[in-house]
Every structure is written in C-alpha cells, then in structure tokens.
C-alpha cells in the first residue's frame, strides 16, 4: 500500500491507541442535529464544566448518532480500564451533576438512564445493547463509527479502517475498481437503485475532460434524515467514497451538494475536506500518486427539485435549479456540460467498505436482489423516531414493530409513506411488504431514500395527499405546465373537497391529472401525483366519503367538521375561551357556544377542555365560503 498512506494511518492508530489507553473515563456525547434539538449542547457544556471543575479523570468527546434520536442526548461511558462501555440516554443537562458523580466519581452504573452495555458483560439491571430490540438485526457498517469516533477528527477515522479502501483502490486500475463495484451489486441509494458501478463506468468511458463527481446530499424528502446522520456522524466515509469514485471513473473534481437546512452537516463535511487536504488526501498529486482530485461542499438554498440530478447540476453551474431535458445524460454532458456522475450520499459511503473488505463480503449480508445494508429513519405516529441500518429484506411491519417501537398509544397503523412525498402512500394492510425495491415498483410507486412515515386513524388521507401535492406544487421548478399547472389544479380540487365542496366528478378529475402529470419532464412532475394515485386505490372509501357524504372520518378537514360545546358544566371552558385565537368560544346568558363563523378549527379549546368540547360532522350542509370560491366553477 502507498507508503505515505501507511504512515498516516499508522500515526492515526498511535493517537487513537493513546486516547483509548489513557486510563481515563471516556464520555462520548452524541452531537448531531437531532441531539442538539434535545439539548445535547447544554449536556456537553455541563459535562465539560463538571469534569474541569471537579478535576475528574475523564475525557469528554463528541460523536455521531447511535440512531436513538428520540432519546437524545445520548452519552456513552467507557471505563478507565477500557473494559466496559455503557450507553445512556436522555442525559439532559440538569442530570449531569448526578450523572458525573455516579458514573465517573463513584464508578457505578446509572441503570435508570442506561440503554445497554456496549462493551462488557450484562448486569442484573442493564442488558446488552445488542439485545435492545432497536439494535437487534441491525448490521452497522456505514454507521460503524457512530457512537465511537469524533466525526471532526480525521485520525479517529483513519485509525478505524478509514482510507484503507482508498489505499487498496490506489493499487487497482479503474477497470478493476469498477468491476469490484459491479460485483458488489451496490445500487443507487437515492431511490433509483441503478448500479453505481455502471454509472461510474459511463463516466469513465466518456470522452471529454474534465469529469466531475457530484454527491447528492440534498436530502429533501420530509421525514428522511439518513444522509444527515451519516454526514454528521462520519463525514470522511463520503470523502473516501468520492476519492475511490475519482479513481474508478477518472474524475478531476467533486461537489457535495448539501441542503442549507443541514448547517451542521455542511460544517462537518467542510472540516473533513479541509483535514483531508491537510493530510494530502485531496488536491494535486495525492499522496505522490499523481492523482489530482479537488472536492468542494456546495450549499443549497432551499429547493426540493435540486434533489433531481440535473436540477442539482443546474443549481451549481447555472442560476435556477431547473431540471434539464434528458438526453444528454449527465455522464455525457453534466456540470458545465462535462461528463458528470451523480450519486447519493449513501451510495458513495458504501464504496470504502466494498474496497476495504471486498465485494463478496459486502454483498454477503443479504439474500435479496438488493445487496448490502440500507439506512432508514422512522417518523409520524410511532413511538420511536430513530435511524437504523439493516440488510435489505425485513418487512415494513418489522420496521414498525421492532425499530419504530410500534404505533403511539397502541393504535393500528392506518397507512404509511415509504420514502418521501413522491413515493406514494400505502394502506396499513400492506405492512408485510419487504423493504426492497420491487414490491413498490409493482404498485407504480417506489421505496424511496429511506424516510418512512407511519400514520394512524387520526390522519386524514385526503389532507395528507393535499399536503404532499401542495409541497410538490411549491417545489415545482415551473418548466412544465403539466407539473406546475397540474399540481396547482390538483391542490385546488383537494382543497375544495376538504372545504365541503367535493363533486362526484372529482375522482375523475384527479385521475385525469394523474395521467397528465406523468408527461412532465423530470421525476418531480412525473411522481407528484403518486400519493393521490396510490391512495385512490388504497383508501378509496375515504375519498368517496369526503366527496359524496361530506364526511371526514379523521375529523381533520375543516369544511366537514365543526367544534361544539358538549357539556356546559365541564371544566376548562373559561380557559378555552381565553386561549381561542379568534374569540369563537363565547358565552351568552350563561350558555357556552362556538361561533362557527369565527372558528378556525385549531383545536386549542379542546386542549383546554377535553370534556367540554367535541368535534362533530359539520351540521350545515352548505359548503363553506372557501368551498364555494375555491377552484372556480
């Protein structure tokens, strides 16, 4: 292997070993966007202050996410002898004083906050972390360093196998690298599943210079945060993956396009790139091998459609991120009309693992057609909103019951969205579908990039459809009338249905729009109506109910429901009147009532007086003003 790289990795391992054998307690605080939202910065500061003030023999470090996003801040405590590591959750700043006293000063466990034993033996009170249902069946390869290494420390990465795959790739020619990638069977992780090796080969075969790599980190699907977890947790994995791709596809420069909503991921990727430059792993004549490769972070500015690869390219080299008309494909004419390869974060991040351990090892984890592992996040009406990495194969039901902790309040799963607003919507009856690509393709939808949203009977299907199509309408680039006009029309029709003005022809109207939008230029327009299309199949009764019976079974659609005083004697009615933002909760001659004309159906009153108020089907059969005026004649 390249001597410079061997030296770099050797030095990194020495530093890592010195840290590991310091004889001091090691406190690894998960510091990412999810944990910061739950106070991890305060926890970190409190731990550092407490350790300094009491001169404790402990080192406080930051690390990436264990995936237990709903129980942050997480802190892993490694004993001074290095023989035992315990993962703790919900270590909020107010608990730090007691936490430090018990786990560091007294050297005991704190079972009430413990999630499990990471290293060492289970105790009577704390099981092994590996036995936690959330961890069982997970195969953490991409997430292997998360929880252990500092994402802002390149030596930590190098000491734990980092840049070894790149070192191996340096000894291979481009054809051999691509063959290894093809043998692995790695499919694009952005949702398409197209073999990454073939894409790299397209780029390598292009006859123009320079060639560019782009990493699509514009993870815009609401409810998906797998790429963020990876960038914030182990950014060098992506740098190394792109270096390997540069060798395989003979690329000169790369861009990592990150949405602006991920400032910490942007900072960590920038730091990783700067550190890689400083070690001679990026730039000209990398490690003396003659390889030239520059890598940049490109910060987005809020445009979902830039997740479409040609929209992303336009966003970098032009002004507006409007998807281009294909062909030419990016591999022929992409960034600045030069050959370009666009892959998802997770796709690039797998390359170091494939090179380090070989295609056979990498693909051996699953019997499914799709190879390797996939990261997923779970949100919506579930108990656990976390991030996992599993081999392809388990069912959605396993994901829900085991990894998302089941539905909140033990309710039934009414339905789910497998991966983003374009992916579609399925009934809870379909929970036995596997988390692989084919079952969804067969239904005219797709699995998506990994953010699964579950909902129960408190969700209205029509409201969800309106929300997702309105999102697509907002995010349409405006090129195709089918898309920007079609999505606008679909939203108008759905708003009218929600307002109580549904017409029998509306399902036909929506089906016409479904047919029309597929003629749009890019995936955005083509898949905007997927949610409506699939829900018309899966939840047809509910659509008909809204349109014909003017009834919303979930009690959501504002034109089909109203708030009513149920009990004049219930507690909280005064408070309900006080909280109402429109003065709709009124009292006349001692009798409470809701002025329906003022009521905006926000439900604050019912929070104050759950027994005093109720949501009932709207009594007046006349459509609301909104219904009468929406969407024209």
């Amino acid at each position, binding site marked *: 292997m390249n001597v410079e790289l061997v030296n770099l990795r050797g030095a990194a391992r020495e530093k890592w070993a010195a840290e590991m054998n310091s004889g001091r307690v090691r406190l690894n605080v998960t510091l990412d966007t999810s944990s910061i939202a739950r106070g991890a910065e305060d926890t970190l500061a409190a731990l550092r202050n407490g350790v300094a003030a009491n001169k404790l023999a402990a080192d406080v470090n930051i690390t990436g996410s264990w995936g237990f996003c709903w129980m942050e801040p997480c802190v892993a405590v490694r004993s001074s002898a290095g023989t035992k590591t315990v993962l703790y959750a919900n270590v909020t700043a107010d608990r730090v004083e007691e936490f430090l006293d018990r786990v560091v000063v007294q050297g005991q466990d704190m079972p009430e906050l413990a999630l499990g034993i990471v290293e060492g033996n289970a105790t009577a009170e704390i099981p092994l972390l590996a036995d936690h249902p959330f961890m069982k069946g997970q195969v953490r390869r991409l997430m292997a360093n998360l929880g252990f290494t500092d994402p802002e420390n390149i030596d930590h990465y190098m000491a734990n196998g980092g840049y070894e795959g790149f070192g191996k790739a340096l000894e291979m020619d481009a054809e051999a690298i691509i063959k290894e990638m093809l043998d692995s069977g790695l499919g694009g992780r952005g949702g398409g599943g197209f073999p990454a090796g073939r894409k790299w080969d397209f780029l390598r075969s292009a006859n123009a210079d320079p060639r560019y790599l782009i990493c699509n980190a514009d993870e815009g699907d609401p409810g998906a945060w797998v790429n963020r977890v990876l960038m914030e947790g182990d950014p060098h994995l992506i740098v190394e993956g792109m270096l390997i791709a540069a060798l395989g596809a003979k690329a000169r420069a790369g861009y990592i396009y990150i949405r602006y909503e991920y400032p910490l991921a942007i900072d960590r990727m920038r730091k990783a790139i700067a550190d890689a430059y400083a070690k001679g792993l990026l730039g000209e004549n990398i490690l003396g091998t003659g390889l030239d490769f520059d890598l940049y972070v490109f910060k*987005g*500015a809020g*445009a979902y459609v830039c997740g479409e690869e040609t929209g992303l390219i336009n966003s970098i080299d032009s002004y507006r991120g*409007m998807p281009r008309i294909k062909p030419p494909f990016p591999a022929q004419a992409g*960034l600045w009309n030069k050959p370009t390869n666009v892959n998802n974060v997770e796709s690039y991040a797998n390359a170091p693992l494939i090179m380090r351990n070989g295609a056979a090892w990498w693909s051996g984890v699953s019997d499914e057609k799709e190879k390797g592992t996939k990261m997923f996040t779970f949100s919506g009406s579930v108990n656990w909103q976390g991030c996992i990495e599993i081999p392809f194969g388990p069912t959605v039901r396993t994901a829900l019951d085991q990894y998302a902790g089941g539905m909140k309040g033990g309710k039934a799963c009414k339905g789910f969205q497998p991966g983003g607003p374009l992916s579609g919507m399925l009934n809870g009856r379909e929970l036995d579908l596997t988390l692989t690509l084919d079952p969804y393709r067969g239904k005219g939808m797709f699995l998506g990039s990994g953010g699964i*949203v579950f909902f129960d009977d408190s969700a209205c299907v029509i409201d969800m459809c309106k*929300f997702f199509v309105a999102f697509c309408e907002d995010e349409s680039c405006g090129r195709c009338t089918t898309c920007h006009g079609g999505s606008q029309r679909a939203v108008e029709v759905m708003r009218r249905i929600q307002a109580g003005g549904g017409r029998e022809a509306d399902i036909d109207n929506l089906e016409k729009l479904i047919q029309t939008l597929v003629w749009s230029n890019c995936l955005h327009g083509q898949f905007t109506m997927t949610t409506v299309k699939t829900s018309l199949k899966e939840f047809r009764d509910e659509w008909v109910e809204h349109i014909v019976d003017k009834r919303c079974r979930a009690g959501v659609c504002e034109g089909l429901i109203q708030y009513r005083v149920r009990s004049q004697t219930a507690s909280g009615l005064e408070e309900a009147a006080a909280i109402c*933002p429109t003065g709709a909760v009124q009292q006349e001659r001692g009798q409470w009532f809701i002025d329906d004309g003022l009521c905006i159906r926000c439900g*604050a009153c019912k929070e*104050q007086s759950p027994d005093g108020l109720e949501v009932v089907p709207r009594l007046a059969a006349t459509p609301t003003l909104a219904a009468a005026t929406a969407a024209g004649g």
Partner: protein
Amino acid sequence: MSAEPSAQELRDLVAEFEPNKGHVMPALHKVQETYGYISRPAIEAIARQLNTTPALVYGAVSFYSDFRTHPPAQTEIAWCSGPACRLAGGDRIREAMQATLELPLGGESDDHRYGIHVGQCNGTCSEAPQVWLNGQVVGNLTVSKAIEMAREIRGGGE
C-alpha cells in the same frame, strides 16, 4: 441591523467570486450571511462581479426559498411543514399562530418585530410538532402553547 452598505463595500464583499465557476449561490450566501438579506444593490454587485445580468442573479434569488430580499424580522418563526409535525397537529398550530399574529404564512408585522414562514423538515421528528424560533427548535408544542408563544411574541416590546 447594520446600515445600508455602500456599493464599494458590496463589491469588496463579492470580489473573491469569479464568472462561470458556480459562484452565484456562494456569493448570494455570503451576502445574506453578512447583511441578513440580499438587497437590490447586492444583486447588481454580484452580477457585475460574475459578468452576468442582474436579471439572472435575481432569477436565482427568487428560485430558492432561503434567499430573502428584505431583512428578517427580529423574531422569525419558521413553522415546520414536515409530515411528522403535520401528523401531530402542525397545521392546526400554523392556523392558530397565524390567527394570533394576524399574518399570512411568509408575512411579517409592519414594525418588522416578528414574522412567520415555512421551514422544511430536517429530521428532528421526535420533537414534532415543532417550530424554529430564530433557528432554535421549540418542540413538542400543543396548539395552546403555540398560541401563548405567539401572543408573547406579538405583545413583547409594546
């Protein structure tokens, strides 16, 4: 908010950027990070520096939701529009906050003290329903809590 920058200040600020190198967005980000928004003179300075037209630069400004052409309000509420927040009553929270503040989504008060706009999901879905108050997550809201927060923001400073 700092005083209007001079044309020279703006030119100096964007002097590092070059034409045809993908520098439009980085230049816009730098201007917004410095001044909080992208003014008309800033658009002209960027166009001049990148050897292009103000129309094309403005085309980029208007395409992306993060770029603003006016200074932000003192207190900006970004309402999370994601599905997890919506399933937890986020849309009712939006209605209630807008009614309390008497603002449309994307609007701000006449005295520029407070405004409310759409924010996009960044995957802190365990905190749903949430808003960001000047960038800080305020999670696990109820409609009542959101109304009280909005009332405090509206009433504050009067």
